């Protein structure tokens, strides 16, 4: 039962262009959403988050969009840089507690 789905296993983007990573969820109790980035042989690191009371959150080159009615969120990276090449995990949690539910990840490759 995958409550958080990242349907694209991988994405390849040219340096300087926009990267869009997508995530869908099924549990309507989720109200906090996060993106984590993971390099090989390292643990995931927190990137950006969004609460369900918002539909957009921006931090530098990274913007997360939330569409609650569609149960969909996306991460935009503009402009993409080669150092952004990593696995990106979408995660969600319900209002109480912090039992994060993760997607399977999307491998982003930014070509120079």
């Amino acid at each position: 039962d995958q409550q958080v789905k990242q349907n694209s296993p991988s994405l390849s983007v040219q340096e300087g262009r926009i990267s869009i990573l997508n995530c869908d969820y099924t549990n309507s109790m989720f109200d906090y959403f996060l993106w984590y980035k993971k390099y090989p042989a390292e643990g995931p690191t927190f990137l950006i988050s969004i609460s369900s009371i918002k539909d957009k959150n921006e931090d530098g080159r990274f913007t997360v969009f939330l569409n609650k009615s569609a149960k969909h969120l996306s991460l935009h990276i503009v402009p993409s840089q080669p150092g952004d090449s990593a696995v990106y995990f979408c995660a969600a949690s319900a209002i109480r507690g912090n039992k994060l539910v993760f997607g399977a990840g999307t491998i982003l490759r930014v070509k120079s």
Partner: protein
Amino acid sequence: DTAVSQTPKYLVTQMGNDKSIKCEQNLGHDTMYWYKQDSKKFLKIMFSYNNKELIINETVPNRFSPKSPDKAHLNLHINSLELGDSAVYFCASSRDYANTGELFFGEGSRLTVL
């Protein structure tokens, strides 16, 4: 200075053996976790401790026993290892139990059961 450190990073062992993975965080956080990343790459929570008290215990076989001697340490002991236990195990911490999900992860411990 590593914030969340796990040892060992790699562990290769035979079925039926017992092994432990240690985790320490120097962030002063109250809450620690163990996550398992299986072959399908999903990260799934196994346990969570808040100030040495167990608060989350997912459906994990009782061969897995976490121990938190203090709030900076959360160790994972696995008895009678099985092939399906092969995975990468990540330790993580957060400021407190009510924290809204910003976890700090260790580098992971890759367990291979032969």
